[in-house]
């Protein structure tokens, strides 16, 4: 059975139910009988949705081939930060556990060696510490900043 999904920029994607229900969000809509018409996804743009659906389709196709799947996943997640961010938001909104897991891990790997300033810039976080407060915190664990 085929489902129709509509991205935030009004592009329609026709997709097999088996593929689409990798998303727990879509799965519950189907189970509640709300999937007869086009399913609007206002939080996901077409570019991201296309990638997400590719992930879902490959997870159905390669389900039995662990090695091939891992190779696909490794290649899939090598995207630039802007795309990764979008994938993360989409995976969270659509509740696709394995994609969310992989994307979180990739972001964690990226953030690992950064300084606090770089973290703030990357994730758009406002520094609500005063310079004195921040200095105190640095002093508590000086070795973590030095090596």
């Amino acid at each position, binding site marked *: 059975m085929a489902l129709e999904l509509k991205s935030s920029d009004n592009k329609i994607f026709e997709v097999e139910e088996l593929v689409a229900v990798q998303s727990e969000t879509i799965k519950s809509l189907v189970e509640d009988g709300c999937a007869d018409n086009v399913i609007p996804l206002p939080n996901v743009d077409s570019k991201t949705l296309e990638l997400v659906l590719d992930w879902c389709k490959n997870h159905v196709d390669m389900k039995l081939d662990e090695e091939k799947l891992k190779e696909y996943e490794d290649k899939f997640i090598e995207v630039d930060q802007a795309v990764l961010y979008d994938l*993360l938001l989409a995976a969270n909104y659509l509740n696709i556990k394995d994609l969310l897991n992989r994307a*979180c891990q990739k972001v964690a790997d990226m953030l690992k060696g950064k300084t606090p300033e770089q973290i703030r810039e990357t994730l758009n976080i406002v520094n609500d510490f005063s310079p004195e407060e921040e200095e105190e915190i640095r002093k508590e664990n000086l070795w973590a900043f030095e090596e």
Partner: protein
Amino acid sequence: MMSQERGAILRRRTKDDLPDETVLDILARLPVKSLLRFRCVCKPWYSSIANPNFLSTHVPNHNHQCGYVIHIPRNIPQPSSSIPGSSRSSGQVCTLACDRTYETIFDFRFPFTHQSGFPHFVGSCNGILCFSYNTAAWSNVFYLWNPSIRKFKRLPDNQLPIMTFGIGCDSQNNDFKVVGIPQAFAKTKPPPEVGVYSLSSDSWKRVELGIELRPTVCYYTVNNSTALPFVCGHLHWILKIVEDVGGHARLSADMLLSFDVNSEKLKQLPLPDVEGSCFMKFVTSLKGKLALIEYKSDAQPYSTPCSIWEMREYGVIDSWNKLYVLSIENLLDFIGFTNYGLLLVQKGSWLVSTNSKLEWKYKYLLIDLETLHEKELSTQVNYHLEVATYMESLALLDGRNVVSY
């Protein structure tokens, strides 16, 4: 869009910030060193990282092929040691080694010392190492140490009698507890008590032993010098039982005690059917299961027959399963199992040294119980070792009276 020109910055969309749970999911995958740095990113991150609930979800995913083991020098001086009273506490070093190959990764020094010299290893649990020092007044001073975030804490003093201690974690309440039972006890009034320290309350208390004791019987904890096994939320002790039968002391069947760290209740667990009480018992953990080594220490000169049992299903009466039977030559002591199921033992023998003197040498070997292959560990120093599992953890972060170094 302008922001796409700058490679390091994600698109700034104030209404599309990552949800909190996703941010926490990402943080939970970071190594502790990064987390300590990121505490100053913003106030919500500062408190989230130290939140006990976050601590329990933190699982850094390192691409390492092996787990870690810490070699900790024990406090027994070697027989050939010449200088009495030489303070070795300042030289106490822990060695972090890969537990598959036992190759040294790095050494780190104890950040604390005590005037009585040698630390006794109480145990390790979820990244925390626990040590005690015997003070002059025959009581113990305890330290909890988290080497991954460079923090330690000396526990408040206790007025407990001489006890055998272990450390475990109460996963339900995100708490660590140090527990001791008396080394010798009997059915007395008042009844014997268990000493319990809880990190969350930062205090010691006594609880009743709570198990049925037989009259005319004395109970003794087996004096293992290695850490008590913490398995399935319980700490374990072996008790030797001496019965008074018509005025004569008689050795009765051993008892296995388990202490539920969460409910703080003791109970007796079944032991496998034994050949006789002349077999010594060593209880430990093997790949997360409770394990028992039975051995006869004076059967033949220099060769110790052993049986190794595993409790397949924790607490279930008939689930003791005999895994291996073997004989170990020149065995001095069992130390424990590695994460891969290799048995670490200490052996001793007389060797002729370079200046033609007969010297007693200790050595440590990893025994593969499937193949019986023995691998000698290259330890530089001729003293005793302990084994613990090193884990990155945020435990002790922001605790009371915690010292950073």
